[in-house]
């Protein structure tokens, strides 16, 4: 279709007088069109207000005081010197804080007891007329702590490890099919290896920050959150307020990566502080404070066992994952879950065990489970390929399952094989006829002091959908307002939702205004689990289609004076979906080099090919894939949070010590996607794309490093300290 057909001449809705006598159909589809982010100008010109940027008259500022022991009790808090400080309005601690009603997350029961469960836990909050005064006041609060012996180190033989009932996202902790030991015994080629991934921190640009105020019994907060519906419901519960009395606004959020997936102590503390001093309060955690308070990815220890017959068919897959949680609440990283569906094998076992330590509470971080899990599984597959002398791309293709190998349900769509083939050809792993041209021998390619190699890994991420509501309103023939409480954490959510709305209304995109980021719009799910576009988009689609139908049916295709509005809720549709295994898949290829002189590891090239349903907006999608792969690269080479076992805190607790990849580390990253049609997902046919990019990258890098040097690195990150002694 060309853009000249039926295209209205004006691109902006005309003010006042309608120039047309009815709602005009769109000349072209918006979905699939590359378009820049709506808020891009506001962001780059500094106009987009984040949580504490909102001008609120009379605001006071809060600063937190953190525990310095990993386990113990607060014996006493002396606030007298702080209160005497100029500008200090009040100090909150467990002795004077208001009582909160439990909503099930002990991490949010801030200042409710004397117990210290981890180092860095908030033990007091100072509120003052300026951030400087609040900070000075915080220095003057004397907290007397009684510390006890603490246990802060994750070990594979920790006596307190246990198997939980469930792991994150509600999966069972264990799955078993057939007999793994028997399968391994029968195998001609075996791998049994243990992989370790470190604790990692999200380090979103915007810190966890809140502006809160109370007005006639209602609580209003601007919060940097990925889930303002959840935050408002939680606050209503904690403060025992009717749900409609709490409003949470998150118009712009400066990244989250999962750390803002649910309410965090900052939002509760800001609300308590605002009530204490009777004026609005702004609370922004510092980078250093975030390392304890805002969550992190747990370290993992994973054992993978694979056994294959002489023809490369897997006979057994075993994946046992160990992770940590805090003494406050149980979070279990679902690292072994991807091994339940990646490859076919008659004998299978996945297990998860966790131990509660005196450490901060881990949380979702971009692709929880799949990210560390894929490092282990996809490294092990590469080890198997080496051991059996199989091409690693071919080995994966040969073990492609026809249905979900554990649940025996069909895949809604699955194009891993095509991603591998397409990627292999683009990367130069195979030639145009599909013949492997890559030399499999490790440690034979030299470029000066560098050894060069290539590696591959598969990616996957579930395609989740969660009920949401949306509102569509027409006020004129060329004016449609669509509202959905999505969170745009820098992904382009509002931009793609507007595209989806335009298509569902079948009107030109210029007629559509989109509003997101306000709990008052109505319930909607979190910007997490890569399910935003699917979930919000479905509600938007439903509301918009109903609205257009109603305009056509009840109003003869004209928007009546006074407008029409439709609210939609997708709870029933989602509940009634047929059973399918719904996942996105992908393949990542890496070329890496390792200096024989210094052990430095550098990545030359990354290529990702993904099959992730319909791509709504190539511009923002590309950024999501590249962003995920960049973060994966960063995790492969650099990121690690080092916990001091004696004190129980992360000593790498700022960006001077917690290194993330910089531009110079990031090579050419190429991204491609297949045109995947999947009718079993949602009306838009979309799978999530926010997380899959980080899944498999670390294994692709590690596999490339092995191909370059012959050295197998099973502990992330892959640093020069690991390489230096082993290179010749």
């Amino acid at each position, binding site marked *: 279709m060309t853009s000249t057909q039926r295209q209205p001449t004006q691109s902006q809705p005309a003010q006042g007088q309608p120039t047309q006598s009815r709602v005009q159909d769109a000349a072209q589809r918006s979905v699939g069109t590359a378009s820049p982010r709506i808020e891009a100008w506001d962001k780059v010109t500094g106009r987009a207000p984040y949580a504490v940027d909102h001008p609120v008259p009379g605001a006071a500022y809060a600063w937190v005081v953190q525990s*310095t022991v990993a386990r113990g009790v607060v014996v006493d808090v002396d606030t007298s010197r702080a209160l005497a400080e100029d500008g200090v309005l009040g100090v909150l601690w467990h002795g004077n804080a208001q009582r909160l009603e439990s909503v099930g997350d002990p991490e949010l029961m801030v200042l409710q007891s004397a117990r210290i469960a981890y180092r860095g836990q908030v033990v007091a909050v100072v509120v003052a007329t300026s951030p*400087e005064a609040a*900070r*000075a006041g915080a*220095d003057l609060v004397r907290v007397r702590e009684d510390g006890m012996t603490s246990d802060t180190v994750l070990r594979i033989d920790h006596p307190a490890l246990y198997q939980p009932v469930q792991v994150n996202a509600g999966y069972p902790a264990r799955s078993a099919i057939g007999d793994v030991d028997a399968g391994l015994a029968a195998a001609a080629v075996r791998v049994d290896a243990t992989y370790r991934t470190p604790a990692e921190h999200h380090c979103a640009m915007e810190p966890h920050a809140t502006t809160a105020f109370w007005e006639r019994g209602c609580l209003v907060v601007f919060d940097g959150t990925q889930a303002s519906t959840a935050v408002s419901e939680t606050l209503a519960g904690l403060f025992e307020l009717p749900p409609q009395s709490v409003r949470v606004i998150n118009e712009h959020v400066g990244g989250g990566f999962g750390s803002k997936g649910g309410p965090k102590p900052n939002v509760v503390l800001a609300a308590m502080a605002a009530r204490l001093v009777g004026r609005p309060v702004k609370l922004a955690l510092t980078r250093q404070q975030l390392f304890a308070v805002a969550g992190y990815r747990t370290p993992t220890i994973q054992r993978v066992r694979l056994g294959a017959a002489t023809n490369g068919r897997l006979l057994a897959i075993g994946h046992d994952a160990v992770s940590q949680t805090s003494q406050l609440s149980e979070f279990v990283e679902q690292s072994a879950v991807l091994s339940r569906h990646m490859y076919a094998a008659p004998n299978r076992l996945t297990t998860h065990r966790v131990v509660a330590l005196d450490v901060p509470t881990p949380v979702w971080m971009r692709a929880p489970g799949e990210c560390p899990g894929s490092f282990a599984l996809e490294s092990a597959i590469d080890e198997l390929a080496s051991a059996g002398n199989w091409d690693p791309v071919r080995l994966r293709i040969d073990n492609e399952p026809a249905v979900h190998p554990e649940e025996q349900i069909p895949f809604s769509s699955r194009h891993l094989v095509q991603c591998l083939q397409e990627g292999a050809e683009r990367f130069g792993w195979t030639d145009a006829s599909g013949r492997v041209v890559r030399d499999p021998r490790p440690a034979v390619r030299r470029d000066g*002091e560098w050894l060069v190699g290539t590696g591959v890994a598969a990616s996957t991420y579930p395609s989740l959908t969660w009920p949401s509501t949306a509102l569509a309103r027409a006020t004129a023939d060329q004016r449609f307002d669509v509202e959905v409480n999505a969170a745009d954490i820098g992904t382009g959510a509002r931009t793609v939702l507007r595209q989806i709305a335009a298509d569902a209304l079948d009107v030109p995109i210029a007629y559509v205004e989109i509003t997101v980021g306000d709990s008052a719009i109505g319930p909607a799910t979190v910007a997490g689990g890569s399910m935003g576009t699917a979930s919000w988009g479905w509600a938007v689609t439903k509301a918009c289609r109903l609205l257009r139908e109603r305009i056509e049916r009840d109003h003869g295709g004209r928007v009546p004076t006074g407008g029409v509005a439709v609210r939609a809720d997708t709870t029933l549709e989602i509940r009634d979906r047929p059973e399918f295994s719904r996942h996105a898949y992908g393949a990542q290829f890496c070329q890496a080099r390792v200096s*024989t*002189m*210094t*052990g*430095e*590891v*550098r990545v030359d090239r990354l290529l990702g090919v993904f099959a992730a349903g319909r791509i709504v907006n190539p511009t923002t999608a590309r950024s999501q894939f590249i962003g995920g792969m960049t973060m994966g690269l960063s995790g492969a*080479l*650099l990121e690690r949070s*080092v916990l*001091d076992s*004696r*004190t129980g805190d992360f*000593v*790498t*607790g700022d960006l*001077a*010590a917690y*290194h993330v*990849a*910089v*531009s*110079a*580390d990031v090579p050419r990253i190429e991204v491609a996607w297949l045109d995947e049609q999947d009718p079993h997902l949602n009306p838009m046919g979309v799978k999530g794309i926010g997380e899959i990019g980080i899944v498999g990258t670390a294994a692709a890098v590690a596999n490339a490093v092995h191909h370059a040097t012959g050295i197998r690195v099973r502990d992330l*990150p892959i*640093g*020069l*300290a*690991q390489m*230096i*002694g082993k290179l010749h």
Partner: protein
Amino acid sequence: MKPFAYQRAEAADSAVATISRTGAAYLAGGTNIVDLMKLGVTAPDLLIDVTGLPLRDIEALPDGGMRVGALTANSDLATDPVLRTRFPAVALALLSGASAQLRNRATIGGNLLQRTRCRYFVDVTKSCNKRRPGAGCAAREGEHTDLAILGASEQCVATNPSDLAVALALVDARVELLTEGGPASMSVHEFFRLPGDRPERDTNLPPGALITAVVLPATPIARMSTYRKVRDRSSFAFAAGSVAAALDVRDGVVQDVRLAYGAVAHRPWRAYAAERSLRGAPATVDNFERAADEELAAAKPLRDNGYKVPLIRNLTVGVLRGMTEASW
């Protein structure tokens, strides 16, 4: 942050007088001291901003040396064409440091006085003998992957983080000062020190003294010098290890050689033992290896920084070998 007073220095001598009297601190680019003030590591009552003083000249001396005003921006010196021919290692060291923005702001004098990046030094809730003498050293048994393998003491295992300092040690630079008693000067080797039992002292700079200039003495061999910095992150990271080297090989024999290591000790580490072993010896890989081993015989790695020993050894061999091949 504790409130503090701020003054602009009118003249060098009055600034020196005030600092010597009050224990206030100089403020140059502020890229290190302001961070440390924010962290509570240092808390001067008064900052005297010296950036207005006329100490920014880069002079090419007729004898082949150079004099660099202490307030010269790192980036200005790094791009100086004379420096790049006479002292390439110094230019490379500067360019390997920090980021472009920081190098524009950071001064040469400030660079020499930047403080260690030891994680326990910058965290006031932890014990550190450098920050609080007698408090103990949490790094020795803690996170010390970046810390010293040479010349450390029971009290302190910190490293000097400066790249520039390593190149200056290579060329026997001198630091010119203004003290209460008048102008003075000291060799960069006397300037930096090992921690011993006074880890709170990074340098032997007399109290209150203002660095006015750094002098690079005429050093013909420095024209064939280089600097190689190693780190996991390709940019914007301190060194895991670094080497500055200058080499003069004729007919396959080492006429003269200089070597200095960074990120291994409390001071830039001039590898005199290795130099001695190489002077007059054939420029072979075996000899480079032996020289590195002689220098590193004194290394006492901690639990998690042992990788620095093979790293420095490889660097020594690799860099010298590269320079030898280049000189063919």
